[in-house]
């Protein structure tokens, strides 16, 4: 709890270019952190759980907040673009409803005014509510650092709770999502004890691409049931080449239950989380299928 508590002594820099940011982060070393929406990093700086003496505010670098959509090449969102801008964007609403599912669930409206998909990914919490969505939409993380640029598939980005592939001086510039294909649909859901404002006991995203009734391609991803968000290959294997029906969805759900290796904590037990892995796999697959068939499956809220 941060009540009445000041942040540790630190300064805030506001680079205007990617190169300046790389320089600041590289010179700053371990105690320099990127400041995107600040909804994780300011909490940490106030709790003093770790030493931070420099925050590099990347929101004045144009690439970090840009949202670019092209029907051919897909969607690129700046790593620091806040959820509020994502669910306010007509192209994202029309083409990537699963992004809206995640964006409208993070915190309350005031948090959504700041919290970014990039910050959620770089915070690398096992329960991050944007990460399964990024994984099933085949997002890639565009990274820049002293050694130049590189891209990493989001499913390979997190390496442990709070840990990821970023090296000294590197940061995330943007996330790229391939263009949706005809017959494709995706859905994200999470389970918490209330409607909003809590950390997921379990979350899941599914994406399918259908040829008529047959599943041509699928991805299922689970969060909060392992040290990193999981891409459950066995769940996809249970679906591809088969019709999307109760039996195949049940087989995928069973694969998710088996893939989950959760912990017991105050939010949920191992048993409950394994059960939820199956339930949320079922529901996200059913609703991804509905979206793939062109049905309207609204995200929560008024967005």
């Amino acid at each position, binding site marked *: *709890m*941060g*009540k009445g508590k000041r942040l540790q002594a630190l300064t*805030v820099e*506001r680079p205007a270019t990617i190169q300046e940011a790389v320089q600041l982060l590289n010179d700053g070393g371990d105690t320099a952190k990127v*400041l995107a929406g600040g*909804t994780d990093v300011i*909490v940490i700086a106030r709790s003093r759980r770790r030493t931070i003496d420099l925050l590099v505010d990347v929101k004045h670098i144009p690439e970090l907040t840009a949202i670019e959509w092209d029907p051919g090449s897909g969607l690129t969102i700046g790593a620091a673009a806040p959820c509020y801008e994502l669910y306010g964007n007509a192209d994202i609403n029309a083409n990537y409803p699963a992004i809206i599912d995640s964006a409208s669930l993070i915190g309350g409206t005031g948090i959504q005014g700041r919290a970014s998909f990039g910050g959620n990914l770089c915070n690398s919490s096992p329960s991050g509510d944007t990460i399964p969505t990024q994984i099933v939409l085949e997002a890639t993380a565009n990274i820049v650092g002293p050694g130049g640029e590189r891209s990493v598939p989001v499913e390979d980005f997190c390496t442990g709770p709070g840990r990821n592939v970023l090296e000294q001086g590197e940061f995330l510039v943007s996330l790229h999502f391939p263009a949706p294909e005809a017959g494709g649909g995706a859905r994200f859901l999470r389970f918490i004890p209330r409607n909003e404002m809590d950390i997921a006991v379990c979350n899941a995203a599914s994406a399918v691409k259908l040829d008529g009734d047959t599943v041509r391609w699928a991805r299922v991803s689970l969060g909060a049931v392992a040290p990193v968000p999981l891409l459950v290959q066995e769940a996809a294997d249970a679906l591809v080449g088969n019709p999307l029906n109760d039996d195949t969805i049940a087989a995928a759900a069973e694969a998710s239950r088996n893939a989950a290796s959760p912990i017991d904590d105050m939010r949920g037990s191992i048993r409950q989380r394994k059960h939820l892995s199956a339930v949320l796999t079922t529901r996200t697959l059913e609703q991804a299928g509905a979206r793939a068939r062109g049905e309207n499956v609204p995200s929560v809220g008024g967005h």
Partner: protein
Amino acid sequence: MANQIISATINDEPMEFLADTRDSLLEALRERIGLTGTKEGCNDGNCGACSVIMDGRLVNSCLVMAAEADGAEVTTVEGLATEDGLIPLQQTFLEEAALQCGICTPGFLVASKALLDANPNPTEFEARYWLAGNLCRCTGYDKIIRAVLRAAEA
């Protein structure tokens, strides 16, 4: 302690002020500028008492660095009323008795103002969902929601 000068437009008034480089916007508003209408509840993003509108977006000022406000436009609860007096939202909060102890009220007013700016005619569900980041220990929320929906009609 390191100070920096911050230029921002606060409640339509351009100003420069000195803040510690580690100040949150909430601390700067309350302690450097003397705008104590914005409240500290949890100081970690969960209660909404510190809600302000920054560059057109609702934010929790306890999770904004004061340095980030440099060049920005910020609206606090002090900036809601006009020369003509209280805005409809403030009036309906009074008429519906949408407050008891009042600590949450500035946050609710600012968050509700942001809601009505974005969506002048919210459903009850939309109003409740939008305000989910604002906590009130006293009213049970119904009166707040009634005040917001009535202000939308006004």
